[in-house]
């Protein structure tokens, strides 16, 4: 009898355990919901600040009602461990709008977003990068925000080149949270000094510098490192204006890989690889392996993001190598620094006209309002992420890692698309950050977003595979440049790249 009871209990326990484990994946969401509900309850007495600010702008303006909530997906910015809950509570406190937010790990973001569309569970606001923006716009998945933008004050406040860079066929589908980062070349300034060399100003001097690093600096195991060879942004000295993908040149879309400039770039890369100036493992490198090698102090040259990363590359390098200097240099004469393709916040096309207007006004415009909203999106919550210090915002220690400070939450203050209008919320920028930033601000170019072509969408997967294979084999010396060019011509013909160009150029 006792045995029978034990068996029954075990059966129920086993079945329950399996059911619980099966639904375990959903547990986090449930917790979030509970937390969200709590937040909603505690912040029902919403401040009227935003409403009054917006209302004050113009009495004739159409009154846009506040939405109760907005669903927002992110894959970067503030995380839970660093006070995200307090931030959302503060947003609700200031605006009276509940943000139903979901953080998606970066590497899963685009997969999950596509699945959300496929299963009709799309968030109202989400961000898209350049490559995806054109695809989503062409499929009618996101709203055209041009009219909303132009009728708002935001359009006038922002540099027109930003709108030009993010426009697709003259329409704006996304509002950038911030100006994209550009990549700048960092060299070991202390090694230059040891060798009595000046900063290189042209390609020959640049190669000579790497050569001498390799030959005369015992610690220099890798001359120049990069995560792969496909990025013209990370290898500007070798690409020298050549394009790996489709590019807009003099108002016309061209196939960059088929141009003579690309053949010349391949030759330069092949020669440098053969001579041992490039990282031998450049093909299999990832950005993290490159960064680690730089921090260890065994790399002479590394092209990476300007701004915040300039400070990080310097700090981490000097932590392991006393006296080391990560020196951001001006581009050599032949090279062109580039900004990353713009990304921006989009509103789903499944959202009604009325809701889209509400989201634009109380979420997107609010984060660029030059005052309270922008401070909240840039620096976070007072007392949690920053404190007032004279007329500046002094970042507080990071909640997750008290050895660091929180310099930005959703918008990097020095990359804001429009400046703060309030004068008592200035941000101090470290020298290592501002130096590299000054170089890219002065020299880097924006890259236009490639519009969608039905044929390109169909062949992208095959075309990218072939190009990656040809370039890697040319760089490693398994194919000559001529063989690479011939192989690509055959591929382009087979995949009908000519039709892609016709579609891109609207012919």
């Amino acid at each position, binding site marked *: 009898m006792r045995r029978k009871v034990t068996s029954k209990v075990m059966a129920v326990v086993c079945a329950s355990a399996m059911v619980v484990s099966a639904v375990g994946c959903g547990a986090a969401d449930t917790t979030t919901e509970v937390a969200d509900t709590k937040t909603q309850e505690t912040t029902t007495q919403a401040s009227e600040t935003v409403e009054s600010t917006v209302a004050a702008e113009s009495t004739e303006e159409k009154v846009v009602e506040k939405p109760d909530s907005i669903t927002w997906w992110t894959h970067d910015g503030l995380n839970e461990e660093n006070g995200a809950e307090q931030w959302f509570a503060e947003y609700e406190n200031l605006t009276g709008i509940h943000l139903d937010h979901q953080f998606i790990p970066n590497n899963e973001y685009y997969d999950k977003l596509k699945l959300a569309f496929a299963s009709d569970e799309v968030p109202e606001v989400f961000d898209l990068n350049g490559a995806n923006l054109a695809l989503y716009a062409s499929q009618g998945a996101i709203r055209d925000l041009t009219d909303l933008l132009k009728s708002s004050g935001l359009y006038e406040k922002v540099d027109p080149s930003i709108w030009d860079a993010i426009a697709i066929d003259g329409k704006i589908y996304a509002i950038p949270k911030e100006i994209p980062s550009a990549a700048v070349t960092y060299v070991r300034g202390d090694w230059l000094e040891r060798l009595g060399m000046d900063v290189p100003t042209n390609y020959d001097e640049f190669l000579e510098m790497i050569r001498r690093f390799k030959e005369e600096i015992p610690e220099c195991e890798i001359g120049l490192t990069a995560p792969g060879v496909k990025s013209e942004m990370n290898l500007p000295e070798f690409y020298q204006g050549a394009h790996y993908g489709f590019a807009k040149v003099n108002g016309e879309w061209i196939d960059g890989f088929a141009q003579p400039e690309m053949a010349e770039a391949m030759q330069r890369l092949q020669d440098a690889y053969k001579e041992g100036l490039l990282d031998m493992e450049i*093909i299999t490198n990832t950005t993290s392996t490159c960064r680690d090698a730089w921090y260890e102090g065994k790399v002479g040259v590394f092209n990476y993001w300007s701004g915040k990363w300039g400070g990080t590359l310097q700090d981490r390098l000097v932590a392991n190598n006393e006296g080391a200097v990560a020196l951001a240099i001006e581009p050599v004469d032949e090279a062109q620094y580039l900004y990353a393709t713009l990304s921006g916040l989009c509103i789903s096309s499944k959202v009604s006209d009325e809701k889209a207007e509400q989201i634009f006004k109380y979420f997107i415009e609010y984060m660029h309002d030059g005052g309270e909203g922008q401070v909240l999106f840039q620096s976070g919550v007072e007392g949690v992420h920053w404190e007032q210090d004279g007329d500046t915002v002094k970042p507080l220690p990071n909640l997750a890692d008290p050895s660091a400070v929180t310099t930005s939450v959703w918008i990097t203050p020095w990359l804001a698309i429009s400046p703060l209008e309030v004068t008592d919320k200035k941000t101090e920028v470290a020298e290592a950050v501002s130096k590299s930033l000054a170089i890219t601000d002065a020299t880097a170019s924006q890259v236009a977003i490639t519009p969608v072509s039905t044929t390109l969408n169909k062949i992208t*997967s095959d075309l990218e595979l072939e190009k990656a294979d040809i370039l890697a084999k040319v760089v*490693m010396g398994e194919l000559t440049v001529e063989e690479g060019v011939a192989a690509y011509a055959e591929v382009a013909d087979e995949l009908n790249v000519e039709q892609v160009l016709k579609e891109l150029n609207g012919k």
Partner: protein
Amino acid sequence: MKLLNKGERVKNTYVPPKKSFKQKMIDVYHYRWFYLMFFPVFTSLLVFHYFPIYGIKYAFTDYTPFTEPTFVGFANFEYLFSSKRFWQAFRNTIELSFIKLVLGMVFSVGLALLIDEVRSVNFRKLTQTIVYIPHFISWVVVASIFTLFLSPQSGMVNAILTALGHEPIYFLASDSWWRVVFYLLNLWKETGWGTIIYIAALAGVDQEMYEAATIDGAGHLQRVWYISIPAISVTILTVFILNLAKVLNLFDSVFVLQNDSVIKSSDVIGTYVYRLGITSADYGVSTAAGLFKSVISLVLITIANWLSKKIKGEGILG
């Protein structure tokens, strides 16, 4: 011809007596706790394995996440079958899978035979634990570890090669070496795990046969060759057929080791479908490729089962 009575056994074959519906329900009630335990598994099978089969309809549609699917007949298959890249991925899948399968079986059986010979119980347990561990390490971690080991600049393997006077080899970026590395990593990771079922089968071999063979003068290798291997041959065949069903499911191990230099020689159907689905958001063609893969798997398993019936007189699929 003699008719069997209810419950009567003939040549070890038990013919169950026919039961009425009421009797069956009584049985269900009697075993209700087992049914309760089975329920979550059954539900999960339905939800995650059977219901998704409905999705194969997308193979015949033009479908992206943003648009309603429109029926296009066999257009997606025509596109796939006319693509050089697809057939290349198919060839790579077959080659990589079959060589991996055969090597895996040979090494697993070999290792199981070796472990079976170990007489010290503690040493045997220790060996088994050590060889099982790699199975539990994710492919992402395995790839990271071995990328470091095989680095041409700072890797342990190349340090040894250089010390012996050889030039360093960029293993992961060389078409020929990449495959060797792929097979070796699979062997390192899965051979130990593959031995479990063979060790269990070997444990069931009648010890008296070994004693009799020893008395007859059989040597060590002869006992393995004439007793151990024939004794577990049915198990080997069963495992082979079961693994054959998974033979085209290559993805993780290839994806984490892929790079631009070997992308064409390492591209398999799994990675091909992934690229189509993710970069082009072309769910119709990706589903068609996935369906094609499933059909080939079904054909392979049916052939293997038919062969099993021919050779052994019985198949595992009935």
